[in-house]
């Protein structure tokens, strides 16, 4: 059975959920072979095995964390040459897409980004133009390079060996041009990462101030959710830019998306339209976000949200 290469995203210790999603997806097409760069493969091996990874290629060198993207693309290109995979799967994150793009140039293979589903013939489903149009596309030349949106599927358990196979490939000087000199971690709270989270609670213009974003955080924490923000909020400087959900920000696809004080302009909808369940709190009954709502409350968020938090905490009791 042909291998499906899956580039792992991880924090040097634990594997990210999206990688387990990719391994789950890969099983439908071949033997999932995870490509792990830098440290941590041993500590993640059990999790990868539980999800059906057949093999884990490990390139443990420090270069992969010291230089931007290029070493990872070089590694994938080399492994692809050796193992002739049936596909290369990446997470549709900033870095995953960039690795895929470089790999596409190196190999001449076609690349599809922001894929939200694959059929048995590896035809890909994409949602474009702010969620207005569904597209089915395919790679027709070379091995498909496919960047899959996080939360597209749920990771499922299946036994695998996850046999570690060390790879010794020297990173070329050409791939060592953009050197990372410092990693600045700005917010290390207990919340899940925005694109990975199963639940996202986002605040919009209606929240009114930076201080009031605490209310959004409180609701998020009661649900174990990540916090997002509309562009109005990040433009106003009420919340950092990296939490912006929307066309020029992050695209999320959680099980539950709670939009609070967000009107639902196309700019925002582009980033959350594929969420499985959507709940809305907004005082304006005409707000377009209600068109997307599975459940909506027309009301003052400063009354509705505290009551909701109280109810959630009571039930968690």
């Amino acid at each position: 059975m042909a291998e499906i290469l899956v580039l792992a995203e991880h924090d040097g210790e634990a594997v990210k959920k999206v990688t387990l999603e990719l391994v789950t997806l890969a099983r439908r097409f071949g033997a999932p072979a995870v490509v792990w760069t830098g440290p941590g493969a041993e500590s993640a091996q059990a999790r990868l095995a539980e999800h059906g990874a057949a093999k884990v290629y490990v390139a443990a060198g420090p270069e992969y964390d010291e230089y931007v993207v290029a070493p990872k693309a070089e590694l994938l290109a080399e492994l692809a040459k050796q193992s002739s995979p049936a596909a290369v799967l990446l997470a549709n994150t900033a870095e995953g897409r960039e690795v895929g793009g470089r790999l596409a140039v190196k190999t001449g293979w076609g690349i599809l980004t922001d894929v939200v589903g694959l059929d048995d013939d590896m035809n890909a489903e994409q949602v474009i133009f702010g969620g207005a149009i569904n597209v089915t596309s395919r790679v027709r030349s070379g091995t498909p390079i496919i960047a899959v949106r996080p939360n597209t599927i749920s990771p499922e358990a299946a036994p695998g060996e996850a046999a570690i196979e060390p790879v010794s490939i020297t990173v070329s000087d050409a791939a060592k041009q953009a050197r990372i000199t410092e990693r600045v971690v700005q917010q290390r709270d207990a919340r899940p990462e925005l694109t990975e989270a199963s639940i996202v609670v986002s605040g919009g213009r209606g929240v009114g101030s930076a201080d009031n974003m605490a209310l959004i955080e409180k609701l998020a924490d009661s649900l174990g959710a990540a916090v997002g923000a509309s562009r109005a909020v990040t433009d106003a400087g009420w919340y950092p830019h990296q939490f912006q959900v929307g066309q020029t920000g992050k695209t999320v696809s959680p099980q539950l998306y709670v939009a609070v004080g967000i009107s639902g302009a196309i700019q925002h909808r582009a980033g959350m339209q594929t969420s499985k369940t959507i709940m809305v709190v907004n005082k304006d009954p005409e707000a377009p976000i209600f068109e997307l709502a599975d459940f909506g409350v027309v009301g003052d968020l400063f009354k509705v949200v505290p009551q909701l938090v109280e109810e959630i905490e009571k039930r968690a009791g």
Partner: protein
Amino acid sequence: MNIVVCVKQVPDTWSERTLRESDSTLDRDAADAVINELDEFAIEEGLRLAEAHSGEVTILSMGPQRATESIRKALSMGADRAVHLVDDALAGSDVLATSAALAAVLSQIGFDLVILGSESTDARTGVIPAMLSERLGVPQLSFASKVQIDGNSITINRLADYGYDTVEATLPAVISVVEKINEPRYPSFKGIMAAKKKPVQTMSVADIGLDASQVGLANAASEVLSFAKRPPRQAGTIVTDEGDGGSKAAEFLAARKFI
């Protein structure tokens, strides 16, 4: 310093965007055309760096005839000149062909710094900056939220989920910028008048040493098989808060097993 800013004309996010029935490519006539939002930040960054380091800014745009509107706007913001890569053979090019064509122009006109927006609002692939870096063999400094140049060395803050990385490289380089790296200027009246006289060089596929068989829809490495309007979501339950809105929301979440 020779700065080239890549600019893409895209359909306005606020107008209805669709694909053409005939070939599944973007229906450019259906929507108003504007400069890709993130490219405005790239233009502004280019202008600021040019002002600080006595450089010049060239706008590079690949697109149909209509893209001249966007090129003029970029020039009216203050860029010095433009190159318009325009050729019917380019229509429907995928990211491989687009990056190859842009790289061919860049190799020909030369550059110290190439600046792009981190993605376009229409295709949203976000891969072109990385592909240009790969093709040109120069450092990739993408997702920059801050750029500093000192002589031949360039440092950026590369935005990430956890914060940012500081990344260093030597010029020439390709950078992509994120929203809010700066505040793009509006063209002044003087700028708009001046833009009319600025040189815009047009180039064809043959001019950049490529063959029509390497670009365009027919030669794309990926293809759209079908598309359809996304069906509207099923209408949900909307309640008006009468003092119990929060409780009702909690009941909904409990019924769906979120709490």
